[in-house]
C-alpha cells in the first residue's frame, strides 16, 4: 500500500468505522447518528455497539422503521446546524430514501444558488454472498454515483474506512458511505492511533505492478489482491488500484496506471449493466486509448437478482479465480 502506516495497531473494518464516528462525535457536538436499532443494539451488525453508552440516546437515536423519514429529517437537520449520520441498515433500503437523497439532498445547494448546505452522511451497506437473498444483498452505490451534488465512498480497508468516514462527516456536502457488511469482522488492518483523514477523489494504489491494472472497489479490492497473487505465480504483476470514492472519481490515477500496464479490468460488486465498471472503463478507454493493448474489461455482479441458494449466489460475484482468468486472457497467457 502506498499509504504510510505509523502504528502497528490492528482494527477490524467495523471497529474502524465506530472509532471514526466516536472521534467525530467527541470533536463536534452537532454530529449525531440516527437509524433503526443503532442505540442499544448497535445495529444488527454490532458496528455501533457501545456508542450509545458514551453519547446517550439524544445523539445515538433509535428511529422508527422509516428510511425516507429519517433521511428527510437528516436533510433538514443538516441544513440547520447539525451533522447527521443517517444509518440505513441494508443498502437495498436506499431505494426508500431516493427522493430525499436525489431530489432534496443532492440539489438543495445548487437550487438555492449556493446558499443552503446539506452536511449529511448516509451510511449504508452493500455486498452479496451473505445468504440474504435479493432484497438484502445489493450494491447500489452506482445509483447515487449518477447524481451530481452527492459524493459516494466505497472503502475497502479499516484504515481507509476510518479516514474517509471522518472526511465524510466534516464535508459540507451530502455523502453516501457504502460499507461491505461482510468486511465488518472479516477484514482487519492497521489503523494508527493518531488522528488522520483521507481526502475524497484520491485513489490508492494497493499493489504495484506492470502487466495489468485491476481497478477495484470495496470488497472487490481484496478479490483483486488475491487475483494478483494468483497471477504472480505465473509471472504476471498486476497493479491494484482502489478509487476509494466513486464520486468524485480520481481519473488521473486510473489513466496513469492503464497507460503504464496497457491492460485493465474494472471490478465492482454493483450490477455490471450501466454500472460503476462501465463509467470507469469508459474513463480509462478514453484517457489511455493509444496505450491500450486490449479492450478494458468489466467485471460486476451478474445481471440477475441476487439468488438465495449458495450454489447460485456464488456464481453472481467476481472471485479471485475469475478475475485471474480474465487477466490471463487479456495478457495473452491463455
Amino acid at each position, binding site marked *: 500500500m502506498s499509504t504510510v502506516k505509523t502504528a502497528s495497531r490492528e482494527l477490524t473494518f467495523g471497529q474502524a468505522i465506530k472509532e471514526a464516528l466516536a472521534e467525530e462525535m467527541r470533536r463536534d457536538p452537532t454530529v449525531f447518528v440516527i437509524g433503526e436499532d443503532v442505540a442499544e443494539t448497535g445495529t444488527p451488525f454490532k458496528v455501533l455497539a457501545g456508542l450509545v453508552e458514551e453519547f446517550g440516546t439524544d445523539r445515538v437515536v433509535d428511529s422508527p422503521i422509516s428510511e425516507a423519514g429519517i433521511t*428527510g429529517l437528516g436533510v433538514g437537520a443538516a*441544513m440547520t446546524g447539525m451533522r447527521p449520520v443517517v444509518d440505513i441498515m441494508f443498502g437495498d433500503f436506499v431505494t426508500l430514501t431516493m427522493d430525499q437523497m436525489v431530489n432534496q439532498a443532492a440539489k438543495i445547494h*445548487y437550487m438555492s*444558488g449556493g446558499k*443552503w448546505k446539506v452536511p449529511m452522511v448516509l451510511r449504508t451497506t452493500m455486498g452479496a454472498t451473505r445468504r440474504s437473498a435479493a432484497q438484502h444483498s445489493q450494491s447500489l452505490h452506482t445509483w447515487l454515483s449518477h447524481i451530481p451534488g452527492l459524493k459516494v465512498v466505497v472503502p475497502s480497508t479499516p484504515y481507509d474506512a476510518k479516514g474517509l468516514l471522518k472526511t465524510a462527516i466534516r464535508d459540507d456536502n451530502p455523502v453516501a458511505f457504502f460499507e461491505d457488511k461482510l468486511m465488518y469482522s472479516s477484514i482487519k488492518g492497521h489503523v494508527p492511533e493518531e488522528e488522520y483523514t483521507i481526502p475524497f477523489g484520491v485513489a490508492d494504489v494497493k499493489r504495484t505492478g506492470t502487466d495489468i491494472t485491476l481497478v477495484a472497489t470495496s470488497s472487490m479490492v481484496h478479490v483483486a489482491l488475491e487475483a494478483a497473487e494468483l497471477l504472480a505465480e505465473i509471472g504476471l504483476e498486476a497493479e491494484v488500484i482502489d478509487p476509494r470514492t466513486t464520486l468524485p472519481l480520481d481519473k488521473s490515477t486510473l489513466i496513469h496506471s492503464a497507460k503504464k500496464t496497457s491492460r485493465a479490468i474494472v471490478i465492482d460488486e454493483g450490477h455490471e449493466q450501466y454500472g460503476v465498471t462501465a463509467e470507469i472503463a469508459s474513463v480509462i478507454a478514453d484517457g489511455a486509448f493509444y496505450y491500450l493493448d486490449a479492450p478494458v474489461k468489466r467485471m460486476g455482479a451478474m445481471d440477475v437478482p441476487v439468488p438465495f441458494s449458495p450454489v447460485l449466489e456464488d456464481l453472481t460475484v467476481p472471485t479471485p479465480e475469475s478475475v485471474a482468468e480474465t487477466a490471463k486472457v487479456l495478457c495473452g497467457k491463455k
Partner: protein
Amino acid sequence: MSKAKERKENQQSIDVEHWLDAYEQMVKIREFEEKVNELYITAKMPGLSHLYSGQEAVAVGVCQALNRDDYITSTHRGHGHCLAKGAAVGRMFAELLGKVDGYCRGKGGSMHIADPDTGNLGANAIVGGSAGIATGAAFSAKHLGNGRVSVCFFGEGALGQGLFYEVMNMAQIWKLPVIYVCENNLYNEYTHYTETTAGSLVDRAKAFGIHTEVINGQDVVEVYETALRLVDRARKGEGPAFLLANTYRYYGHHVGDIRREYYRSKEEETDWQENRDPLSILEDWLLESGTTDPSVFARIRSDVNKEVEEGAQFALDAPYPDPSEVDQHVYC
C-alpha cells in the same frame, strides 16, 4: 367570518397597525401573483407558475406568528409563503425570470425559492417533499436549544405521500417544535380532494396523537390567533401541531390551467371570490370595528402596486447569470 364578527365585542383591543400590516402583506401577494400571471401571458417569464391568489390569509397569518429566524418550508405554490416570511418582491421576480439577482441566482425558479436570511428552507417541487426537511429543522432546533420553530406548509394533496406519516410519527414521539400547516384548497392539481381522500384529512394527524386545529383559512385573524397559540406551545416544548386551513385557489393548478370547467364550476369560483375573499373579510372587519377608513385600504393598495411594478421592472432589467455559473454550486 362569523368569528371575525364575534370579535367586534373586543374592538377596543384591536391592534390596527398589526392588521394593516397583515392587509398590506396579503395585498402584496395578490398583486405579485397578478403580475406573475401577466408576465406569463406576455411571454416574459420562462416556464410556469402556480399562483397562491385566494390563499393569502394562511401564509400571512402563520408567518406573522413566527420570528424571522424561525423556519418554513414551502411548496410549488410557494410565492405567498416566501413573501410572507419576508422575501423582497424584486428578488422574487428576478428568480422567476431566471435572473442572477434572484434569490437563487436564477437556478431555482418559481418552485425553489430559498432564503436563509428569512428562515426559508426552500420551496419544494416534490409534493410533500419538504416534510422531512421541516421536521429535521425542528429536530435541530430542539437539540441545539435555540428556541426556533419550524413550519411545514403543504397542500391537502401532499397527504397522499407516505413521507408525511413517517415524519409526523417522529415529530410526536420526540415532541419536536414543528407545525404542519395543511392548506386544503380543495384540489389535488385537477382532482377534487374528496375523490382521493379516505376518511378525513385531520384524522390523519390525530392518529399520531398530534394536537390538531381546523380553521377558516380565509380569515387572517383566525389564522394568526391560532398560529400564535400553536407556535407558543411548540416553543415551550409541548410538541408538534397540525393546522388544517380551509381555503381556495382562485386560479388553476398553474398559470396555463385556464379551462377548468371540467373539474370545477365557475359558480364555485365566483362564490369563493365574492363571499370568502381574505382581503374583503379583513377589510370588512376593520371597517366594522370603526378603526379604519376605506381610504387607508386604497392607499395601501396603491403603495403595494407601485412596489410590485418597480420590483417587476427591476427583475426585467436584471442580467441573466453568466454561463460560467452553470457548474457552480453543485458542491460547496
